[in-house]
């Protein structure tokens, strides 16, 4: 196999698959990228058996074929090459020669035979989604995904269609058991059978999906095969195995009767929280919030350093209430918003709090208080 490719194109393709290759090194070939040279393009494939990606890039192919090689090492080499055309030549014995300018590399590859099979897909089975829309929906939920591996059913974002006032919506929900984010946008996906009961996209796949949505605007194609989701955009295909588990009954934990509602300017709240969190305890990030008439007071204390307090003007007429929250959780939510004002609704110091943009019914976040 032999092809010539512009460095700039090759490095972009190799950078893209670095996040996919298996890092734990349990199956050696999964640390490799599969390179296939076909007519006028090369295809780069990587997989960790949970999430796989295949993308094609223009190249001058003089002899078609395929080879695999350490994705990380190849990336390191190509990154340091001069900005010129690269000559990539894989020989019968799986050794690979790379020439660029006056640089010459002779590296060992591995036969493509053992690389896992990457399925082909028919375009007709896909539904088209606006990339910008999907990116916003992911941005406003993904921070709530659990990082606790033992809670595997929370290690992703839950997707499902819902109907509201006759309108078809796509809803995304993520939770780590302490907080929950939910967003829904008008998008008719009710006809996708696999989606009807809801599916959980894995965290790693979500990150790839987000990158694809961010990479230029335009449409993404999403489809489902067996227990996999397939996402296609231009010349890139990502396949991810959906999480095989039941998403918890999240509707039960969304507060319905939180009568103490305070309207808070988002920007001042966010900056004050960042300051307060510096002195909250390293692990729990607890910040105390006291709400009085038109005033919200925040304070934090750290037995080793000292304490801090700050207040901001808010709109509030209810009874005085004091509650503790993990500052990180609040900051994550506020960071993902762009509204000028947000509403925080509470019931008491132990029940979940509800945060919504004041002017918008599409988004909500629930966070559990902490006992300080």
């Amino acid at each position: 196999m032999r092809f010539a490719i512009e460095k700039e194109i090759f490095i972009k393709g190799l950078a893209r698959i670095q996040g996919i290759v298996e890092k734990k090194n349990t199956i050696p070939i999964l640390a490799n990228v599969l390179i296939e040279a076909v007519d006028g393009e090369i295809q780069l494939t990587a997989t960790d058996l949970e999430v796989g990606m295949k993308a094609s890039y223009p190249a001058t192919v003089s002899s078609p074929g395929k080879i695999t090689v350490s994705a990380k090492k190849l990336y390191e080499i190509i990154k340091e090459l001069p900005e010129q055309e690269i000559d990539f030549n894989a020989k019968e014995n799986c050794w690979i020669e790379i020439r660029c300018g006056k640089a010459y590399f002779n590296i060992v590859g591995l036969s493509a035979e053992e690389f896992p099979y990457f399925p082909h897909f028919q375009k007709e089975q896909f539904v088209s989604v606006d990339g910008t829309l999907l990116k916003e929906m992911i941005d406003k939920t993904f921070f709530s995904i659990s990082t606790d591996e033992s809670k595997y059913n929370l290690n992703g974002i839950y997707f499902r269609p819902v109907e509201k006032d006759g309108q078809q919506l796509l809803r995304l929900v993520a939770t780590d058991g302490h907080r929950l984010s939910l967003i829904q946008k008008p998008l008719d996906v009710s006809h996708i059978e696999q989606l009807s009961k809801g599916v959980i996209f894995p965290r790693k796949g979500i990150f790839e999906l987000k990158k694809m949505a961010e990479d230029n605007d335009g449409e993404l194609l999403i489809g489902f095969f067996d227990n996999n989701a397939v996402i296609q955009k231009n010349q890139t295909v990502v396949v991810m195995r959906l999480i095989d588990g039941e998403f918890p009954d999240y509707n039960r934990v969304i507060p319905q009767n939180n009568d103490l509602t305070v309207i808070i300017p988002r920007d001042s709240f966010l900056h004050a929280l960042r300051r307060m969190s510096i002195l909250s305890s390293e692990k729990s990030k607890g910040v105390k919030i006291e709400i009085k008439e038109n005033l919200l007071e925040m304070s934090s204390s750290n037995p080793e350093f000292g304490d801090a307090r700050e207040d901001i003007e808010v709109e509030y007429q209810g009874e005085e209430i004091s509650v503790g929250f993990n500052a990180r959780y609040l900051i994550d939510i506020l960071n993902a918003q762009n509204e000028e004002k947000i509403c925080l609704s509470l019931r008491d110091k132990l029940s979940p709090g509800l945060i919504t943009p004041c002017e918008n019914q599409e988004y909500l976040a629930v966070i559990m208080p902490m006992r300080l």
Partner: protein
Amino acid sequence: MIRSIIHLDLDAFYASVEQHDEPQLRGRPVLVGGRSGRGVVCACSYEARRYGIHSAMPMAKALRLCPAAAVRPVRMERYRQFSRRVFAIFARFTDRIEPLSLDEAFLDVSGCERLFGKPAEIAAQIKAAVRQETGLTISAGVAANKFLAKLASDHEKPDGLYVVPHPPDNFLLPLPLKRLWGVGPVTCQRLEKLGLRTVADLRQLSEARLAQLFDSAGRQLYRLARGEDQRPVVVASARHSIGHEDTFDHDLQNPLELHRSLLDLAERVATRLRGKGLAGSVVQLKVRYADFSTVTRRRTVDPPLDSAMTILQVAEELLLRTDAGQRPVRLLGISLSQLQEGHEVQGELFGVEKRDRLSALDGAVDQLRQRYGAKGVQRASLMTGARFESAPKTGGDGRDGS
């Protein structure tokens, strides 16, 4: 400044606790330890020491030396109770306490004179309080540093109180060299070959000569021979982890036995965590195979755990990532680290009712154990003689009858 250090050491601690609990054993030789084939003497009363018995001696040999001795099993939980009470007495006099074990500690009482009197008086007060409140006797050594204080507590044991004079020469010089800290059998032999027997003999050697013979240990010997020791009393720092491990009588391979052993460990770790009001976010499992090779597996969990069943669940999952079951297992251990105190607790969205009920159950069990001892309430599958296949129908109230 001259420091005032007290070393306190309970006399024949385990055996004394047994004599306390069974008054008919008082004045009789008592051995604490396992009676079975491989058992050794963990502790023995002073009456037993007269027969030449000492701790770590095989039980069979001890019983040949003194067939009339009463043998009692080790009851660690009971000793801990006494230990806690004794340490609570120490804490009335100073917060600078360095525990060495359950029955031994250094106290730094420098600067406490105005409050409690001279160091020797403080030591006497502690001895009296320990005797009065726990019925145990404790030996005390008072000196200007830890090295001398420890020598002193041993000087008039049992029930001793010795104050090392200043300068300490009259006390120190006649002592045999093996009493010095850091002088083991090997060093002792080398010193004897040089014709040295007592601290006074050692005094004759220069620092350079000692350094030449024993490197840095030589410099330490030089200082110890002069009764010098600058080590501070190190107050026990906060715990980093809480764990238990068990070496089995026979290697385990049966999954049910492994499960049962993990349950037992999880139960003990959880009880200790709750006793200290802590919960841990990292669960570590340790597995030692029959060939002594050892592996550990760990997982970070959220929220932090303090309940046996949830710890067990994680431990079982970790066990699947080892060869336990395929290879025979000699030792299992569970420990929790990244401990945090319960007072700053992040609330949970899901499964709150179930968790609340579990923790109420744990609390009730803890209270029962406080009243009736560790075996007052037990899981049915951990009862002695419980069959692995299924929990026995009778005895479901969890009593083992002992």
